[in-house]
């Protein structure tokens, strides 16, 4: 999962719906695994497959016109349950970037912790991108993490996006938070000593 991040250019898979919650990304009945593998095949399960397990033609993941490692979604993506399985499902399916105008907090962290880059863009950028993809399914987007720029390669609309410098460093170097925290155990122990009066 620790795939180093730099510049990604890809066509997109559009899902122009708001408030897509993590129960839709991966329904609860698929959370029973005790490892991180195999969630990709159940990504958006109940929108993607019918009761018999046959692909639902209208759903975008089943439409051969669309492909790529960038998911483009409506606002408030990943609301609801904290399940990191949602991020494992996105990563397992092959997504490396999610573009939206607004992300739910916990899910956004979960994406970052799984080396998926959540890119927050303006409503206008998102609308134009949806329109361009609708008109031409091969529309590509360039995501440049070092320079924090996202570019719609059809309209050439380009925007700066925000990311915590620490997280950017982690993504570009394949590091995670545990590496950092383990290196800082002495500071944690110092804090514990200073705050021992607070202990139960």
């Amino acid at each position, binding site marked *: 999962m620790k795939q180093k991040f730099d510049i990604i250019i890809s066509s997109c898979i559009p899902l122009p719906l708001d*408030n897509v919650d993590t129960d839709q990304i991966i329904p609860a009945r698929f959370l029973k*695994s005790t490892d991180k593998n195999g969630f990709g095949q159940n990504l958006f399960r109940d929108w993607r497959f019918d009761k018999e397990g046959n692909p639902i033609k209208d759903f975008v993941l089943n439409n051969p016109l669309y492909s790529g490692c960038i998911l483009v979604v409506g606002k408030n993506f990943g609301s609801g349950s904290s399940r990191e399985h949602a991020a494992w499902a996105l990563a397992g399916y092959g997504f490396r970037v999610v573009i939206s105008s607004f992300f739910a907090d*916990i899910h956004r962290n979960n994406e970052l912790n799984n080396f998926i880059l959540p890119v927050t863009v303006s409503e206008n950028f998102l609308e134009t991108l949806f329109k361009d993809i609708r008109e031409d399914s091969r529309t590509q987007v360039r995501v440049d993490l070092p320079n924090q720029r996202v570019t719609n390669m059809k309209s050439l609309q380009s925007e700066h996006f925000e990311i915590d410098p620490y997280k950017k460093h982690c993504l570009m170097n394949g590091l995670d*938070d545990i590496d950092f*925290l383990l290196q800082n155990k002495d500071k944690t122990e110092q804090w514990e000593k200073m705050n021992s009066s607070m202990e139960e």
Partner: protein
Amino acid sequence: MNTLFDKIWDRHVVQKVTDGPEQLYIDRMYCHEVTSPQAFEGLRQRGLRCFRPEKIVCMPDHNIPTVGQDKPIEDAVSRCQVETLKRNAEEFGLTHYDMFSKDNGIIHVVGPETGLSLPGMTIVCGDSHTSTHGALGAVAFGIGTSEVEMVMASQCILQQKPKSMRITIDGCLGEGVSAKDVALFLMARLTTGGATGYFVEYAGQVVRDMSMESRLTLCNLSIEMGARGGLIAPDEKTFSYLKDRKHSPKGKEWTDAVEYWRTLKSDCDAVFDKEVRFDGSEIDPFVTYGTNPGMGISIGETIPLLEDVDRNEHDSFTKALDYMGLVPGRKMLGLKIDYVFLGACTNGRIEDFRAFASIVEGRKKSDGVTAWLVPGSWAVDRQIRDEGLDIILAKAGFEIRQPGCSACLAMNGDKVPAGKYAVSTSNRNFEGRQGPGARTILASPMTAAAAAVTGVITDPRTLLRGFQG
């Protein structure tokens, strides 16, 4: 100058990472069986032990069946997950309340009622409803599994400090209106993303007047507005709720603790990044009609018309109503329902069972309704029986099941069939949440009780004693 949230958060900052998040010390972590196995596996792969095992408490709750808990779980995959938690807890030396323990229940019910969660603490769990514990005056929030692994490895987590929001609810609530209605009202007003990026403090007369159980319900639902957590300044009610609980401090430690807890309130001149204010007397019993918790209306209102909905949300709105089998402009009152679920970390406490019983007492469950009444913990179950609520409920045709998360997310056998309407006291009405195709209507315990005895969505106030129609 400081908010209550600042006081607790800042005290737990070990260090600020340059140009980055803060390293926050965690006083208590809870683990359940669904979001922990990959974290334990991560520790094994790195050859690590838990840094502070005494601060971590594990209990299975999501997969637990609500009948026949004395027998092994039938579903092999659920059983494997529950047994994996037990094995992991043993291997890493953590406290574990297994399914057969009389201490078991839903983590967010057990934590407060045993005094494992206390004012001033930082509390996390791989579960978004960890916000519940904020009702005690703690900074409590849900995290992902990678973050669970971080806390196991270091007792710390790296987080950006959220912004602060105060929601003040003045006045007082009318009869038949509960904390659940307040929360559903707030979600409808603020939307499901309205508090994203914020940590909420609830204040005002309505909140001060609330019992601890009601406050737990209110804080539980903070995440449904997108907030990372919600908290309430601890007061005499909090202290008397916690006194003599199993894990609460005792003797001098108690006195010292209470002295510290009394300082846990926002300063008069504290500045919040955002403030909103509502009048409690304007809140009615609330129900949802759509597929996110923000799609709610006062029980007597009609579902919005398409033209009243933001143009950008037309597709989501139409998709939600199609799924629910409802149409714009119709009333929720009188809608025939099939299932009723009382329980979950939202409404599985003693007060919720009292409220439900107060409505169904002397009445009968409607024949067409299947009702699941699931206490949030064995302690709640014992209190139901001590108070004789089980007899009132049995006379009205309701049986009490065994504790667990149950139909809130249907990971056990308690699934609502496709196309059926369930009035549920849980926290989420997402598509498929209570089973594939299930149609969830979120409501308070009293509204659920009113639906259970009439078979249709009914204003619970019309069933209160002394109601003049």
